[in-house]
């Protein structure tokens, strides 16, 4: 049901937001920091989700939250995306995660003991399909109108010329040019009858170059209009296709949560699920089951990285990785592979606690993964040694941290070209049923390469030292 609309979003993303870049990063404007194409990746990712917590989205896209937020803010302004922000305690987040689990597989997740009362503001986002349809149509309309107006000289200020003395006037002088005797404008200096300039287009006397450039401009405009219609044809066709279909409507975050919750409860009369959502609502979080998120909830924290909410997050990860029973998967649901029982590559590469309880097929995959991670560890050791050699002049402490950071991000599978390629490969396979749009992965990997150092949202970017480090790594 959502498919035609998703296709519309994808086409629009490629047509209009392909070269969108979030500037203002205090990174140097090199090829590496060029994040064009990210907008498309984000929009594509959103077509596979409904409401999603922005942090989770950032994690699964391996983007820095700040960067993602900037992109989302832009899309909010563009009216493609609705966002919602609310304050949640760590406890709330836990309940929220439990609710996700409840909706995902109808099982209650083990209760957690200690609860923190820290309040964080969490942001959620969702595509607004009905509005996107209007926005895209309006945009096309404005584009066409602008070109056509220019072709018709619609919004140009008329100019007048005195044929006797060649003095030029603009329409702004009209008040002074009016004559009481007849219907024409008259020259202020010689009282000659003025002629509107466009009428003189045929006449050659008023300067050839001027006319030529005007004609060339017209040609250019016409050409542009034609090319625009040609190139945006797929988009207009898709708009026409979507025209009479009801747009997918997820409602506000609260409404959506409530409905998904209800669906989860109706699907299985497992009392515990109800409990979870009830308690969640009691907390005022509306019990947010989000069956499609959380695949990358697990953080591989090495060396004193932020460990604050680890408990809650691992729980969420295990929970959300559970597979949706086939009878729960309805048409029109936007599910990740995990919920369909397939495996998602980026989660796989995360490989750690998340994979302890899994179905058999996943275990098989895990074996392969183990071999791979061995290889990767080997490579890491090599790169570490290499980096250490290069960084010999830097302070020992900072360096150790840097390489640790890099290692952890490397283990996440995105830090060097080698593993990045593997990620890309698998993502392609995963994306096969996605209408064959394979474009995203390449760019994604490209971005991931750029962002390797910040791909763990909890890790603080360590400054320019890291950057150099990173470059060397890629060369090695």
């Amino acid at each position: 049901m959502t498919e035609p609309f998703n296709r519309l979003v994808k086409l629009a993303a490629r047509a209009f937001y392909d070269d969108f870049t979030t500037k203002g990063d205090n990174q140097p404007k090199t090829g590496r920091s060029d994040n064009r194409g990210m907008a498309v990746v984000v929009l594509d990712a959103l077509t596979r989700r409904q409401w999603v917590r922005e942090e989770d989205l950032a994690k699964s896209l391996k983007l820095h939250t700040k960067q993602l937020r900037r992109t989302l803010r832009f899309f909010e302004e563009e009216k493609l995306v609705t966002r919602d922000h609310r304050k949640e305690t760590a406890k709330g987040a836990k309940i929220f995660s439990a609710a996700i689990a409840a909706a995902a597989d109808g099982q209650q997740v083990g209760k957690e003991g200690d609860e923190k009362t820290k309040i964080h503001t969490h942001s959620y986002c969702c595509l607004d399909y009905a509005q996107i349809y209007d926005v895209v149509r309006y945009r096309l309309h404005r584009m066409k109108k602008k070109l056509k107006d220019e072709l018709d000289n619609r919004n140009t200020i008329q100019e007048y010329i005195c044929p006797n003395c060649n003095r030029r006037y603009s329409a702004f002088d009209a008040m002074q040019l009016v004559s009481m005797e007849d219907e024409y404008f008259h020259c202020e200096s010689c009282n000659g009858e003025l002629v509107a300039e466009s009428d003189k287009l045929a006449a050659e006397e008023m300067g050839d170059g001027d006319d030529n450039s005007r004609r060339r401009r017209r040609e250019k405009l016409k050409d542009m209009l034609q090319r625009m219609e040609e190139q945006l044809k797929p988009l207009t066709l898709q708009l026409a296709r979507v025209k009479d279909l009801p747009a997918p409507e997820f409602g506000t975050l609260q409404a959506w949560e409530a409905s998904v919750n209800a669906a989860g409860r109706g699907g299985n009369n497992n009392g515990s699920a109800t409990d979870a959502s009830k308690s969640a609502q009691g907390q005022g979080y509306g019990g947010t089951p989000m069956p499609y998120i959380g695949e990358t909830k697990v953080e591989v924290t090495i060396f004193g990285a932020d460990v604050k909410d680890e408990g809650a997050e691992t729980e969420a990860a295990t929970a959300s990785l559970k597979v949706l029973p086939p009878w729960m998967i309805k048409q029109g649901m936007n599910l990740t592979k995990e919920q369909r029982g397939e495996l998602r590559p980026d989660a796989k590469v995360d490989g750690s606690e998340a994979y302890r309880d899994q179905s058999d097929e996943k275990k098989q995959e895990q074996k392969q993964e183990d071999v791979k991670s061995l290889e990767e560890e080997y490579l890491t050791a090599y790169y570490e040694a290499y980096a250490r050699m290069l960084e010999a002049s830097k302070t020992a402490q900072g360096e150790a941290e840097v390489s640790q950071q890099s290692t952890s991000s490397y283990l996440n599978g995105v830090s060097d070209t080698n593993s990045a390629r593997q990620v890309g490969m698998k993502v392609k396979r995963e994306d096969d049923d996605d209408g064959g749009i394979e474009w995203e992965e390449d760019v994604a990997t490209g971005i991931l390469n750029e962002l390797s150092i910040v791909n763990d949202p909890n890790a603080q970017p360590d400054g320019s030292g890291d950057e150099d480090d990173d470059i060397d790594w890629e060369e090695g």
Partner: protein
Amino acid sequence: MFFHMVLERNMQLHPRYFGPHLHEKLTTKLVKDVEGTCSGKHGFVVAVTKVESIGKGLIREGTGFVTFPVKYQCVVFRPFRGEILEAVVTLVNKMGFFAEAGPVNIFVSNHLIPDDMEFQSGDIPNYTTSDGSVKIQKDSEVRLKIIGVRVDAAEIFCIGTIKDDFLGVINDPDATA
């Protein structure tokens, strides 16, 4: 567009007004001085709504006049490019027509009048569609879009168009008569 804003002005007052009604006098003089004037920066001052404060007067040497700095709130009108205005036609000729929106003069040249409207000269020059259903003549009311604004120190002049959706005659004087 109309704006409500606070402006300042130095008012000179003749010594003969120095007395119990000095503030009243200043206010009436202010209203008389500024209402209906046009400043290039703010547009037309339509009405003074309130005198906010009157500062300390300064006696001018030689004349005995006193200068008061006066702060006042007022409504100003300033047209912008892209703005839609309703205006009354004042003059129609072969080159187009002139219209007034309050204090602003607007000129709509004939190439910004829809192509299906033809100029008809005669006693009452006008622009008419071929079927005669729509007519623009003196005192017609039109809705137009501003496409150019020229702001002088004491005058604002606009170029408008009625060659777009929902623009054109909104009230025909003949029809109501």
